[in-house]
């Protein structure tokens, strides 16, 4: 294969694929954040903590209950989602009518508490989680060796994102949700139970973070800090994409993963901060974000 900017194309393609894996997680999480923000006007700082919770429950399912990966893939998002719905019902709901900053601070406290609790219970060290048997092995792509599990992560998350996008953009339910974002009281007057819809939306998006947590368990170590280190990057992704658009959140998430992967090739020491650098550039050049509408 030829070289591109002095780097073998094989290496480059390999990093693009690896970047897509990180990008998948950015996309799933920023998608949830964008929907929650659109509907509830809440910046859900605890989103990373729910992702961490998903990974931990997956690990607990295996070690305590003997539930395997595939069962976890179904059970865990539901558990996490229900927990999220309860949080919305009991607490967040009371904060909608005051300054948005308070719901951000509340979820911030929630994230701290959840991370603290898991560190207390299970220690700070990462826990390994085995790759499910059916997904072990590798694809030999010629230019790289891609573990089957990683391919599965990209596939599953892209499919899930696409599904959510389709539901939001093409279905009646999606139309209700979009309408409720614009004018909740009119939608209520049309006979739709908007408060219930908000609870379900929050539960669903948080469940999606839990789903991402299940996918992450075999790749990254399951640890209490895995959520917070991710969520801050996802916030940067959200600032870059703008909070206005769901498709935008997905695209921005995936492409920033790729950009991060490419940076690993050309300038490895900057790969941890490249997303923040992009954020700064976007803020300077296009303050509302790439897909944003600012109010």
């Amino acid at each position, binding site marked *: 294969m030829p070289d591109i900017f002095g780097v073998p194309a094989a290496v480059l393609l390999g990093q693009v694929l690896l970047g897509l894996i990180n990008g998948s997680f950015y996309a799933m999480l920023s998608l949830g954040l964008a929907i929650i923000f659109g509907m509830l006007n809440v910046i859900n700082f605890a989103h990373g903590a729910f992702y961490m919770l998903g990974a931990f429950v997956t690990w607990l399912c295996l070690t305590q209950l003997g539930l395997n990966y595939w069962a976890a893939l179904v059970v865990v998002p539901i558990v996490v989602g229900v927990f999220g719905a309860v949080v919305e019902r009991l607490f967040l709901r009371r904060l909608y009518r005051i300054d948005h900053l308070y719901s951000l601070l509340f979820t911030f406290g929630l994230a701290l508490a959840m991370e603290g609790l898991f560190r207390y219970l299970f220690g700070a060290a990462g826990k390994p989680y085995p790759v499910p048997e059916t997904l072990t092995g590798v694809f030999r792509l010629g230019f790289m060796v891609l573990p089957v599990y990683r391919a599965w992560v990209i596939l599953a998350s892209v499919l899930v994102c696409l599904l959510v996008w389709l539901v939001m953009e093409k279905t009646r339910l999606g139309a209700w949700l979009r309408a409720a974002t614009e004018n909740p009281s009119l939608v209520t007057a049309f006979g739709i139970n908007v408060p219930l819809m908000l609870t379900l939306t929050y539960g669903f998006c948080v469940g999606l973070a839990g789903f991402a947590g299940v996918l992450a368990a075999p790749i990254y170590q399951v640890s209490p800090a895995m959520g917070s280190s991710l969520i801050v990057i996802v916030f940067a992704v959200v600032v870059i994409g703008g909070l206005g658009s769901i498709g935008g959140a997905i695209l921005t998430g995936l492409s920033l993963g790729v950009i991060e992967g490419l940076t690993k090739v050309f300038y490895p020491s900057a790969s941890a901060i490249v997303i*923040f650098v992009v954020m700064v550039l976007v803020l300077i050049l296009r303050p509302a974000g790439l897909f944003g509408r600012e109010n």
Partner: protein
Amino acid sequence: MSMLIKGLAGFTVKYKWIWWIGAFVLAATLLLAPAMVYPLLLINILCFVLFASALNLVLGYAGLLSLGHAAFFGGAAYVTAHAAKTWGLPFEASVLLGTLFAAVLGLVFGLIGIRRYGIYFAMITLALAQMLYFIAVQMPFTGGEDGIQSVPRGMFLGLVDLGDINAMYYVVLGAVVIGLMVLWRTLHSPFGHILAAIRENEPRAVSLGLDVAYYKLIAFVLSATLSGLAGSLKVIAFQLASLNNVSWHLSGEVVLMTLIGGMGTFAGPIIGATFVVTLEHMLATSGLPIALVIGVIFMACVMLFRRGFYGETVARLKVVLDRGHD
């Protein structure tokens, strides 16, 4: 009860000297405290009092939620530690350098984010601070996970050996009091009144022709500078610069201190910082998980008393007093 408070209020207005006695007692307590309480704890409290008060300037008075203030505190701490240890600069110069670094960093963050509102501003400051965190993890001079250890305390004005923990305490006390005075003067200057006007009603301030972003930026830079001073003092006293000082947890904690004491009140962050640092000190030996407790307090504070200890007390007193007057 209301009679009592009403009487008390009248009393304090009538007898101004009560305030003087109060101030005297406070001063005496602060001066004698190291004889009674572990001085390093006191120093820690003082540093966070300054840090939270500095944050309050933007959070409480300018209405900007910064979730990245640890960058100023911890960034200054690294610079000061490096200056004192590797360059061998004296105490004053190291602290000054750290503080200056925080000021410049504040200007950069401010220029990038100041025109964005509310939650966007919060996310931007958080992300920028996290960028600094990652840089701190990677740069060789910060010592990565180990941090910069055994930072020399040096001499104050070349005369007083700060190796003596009591001397260290008094120097920190002096610096923090000066920092608080700067804040007090700022808030009671025309600039402070403009900030208040902007927070009250930003559109009106704009229509009056005020360059709102400019004033916010100044407040933000001043806040960053004083946060840096707090971080520099702490790193010298504790002789350790570490990643904890630049982490998002710390940014959150200092917001909590301000919130729990009372945002937008001068006494609030002082009370809040004292409370939180003392609590953490007690928790540290109890084996209970600090982050969990802090997180739960945070949630409780948002749900139950958003005005904080001080704000809530004042508000209740007012209600009682007003009722007394009717």
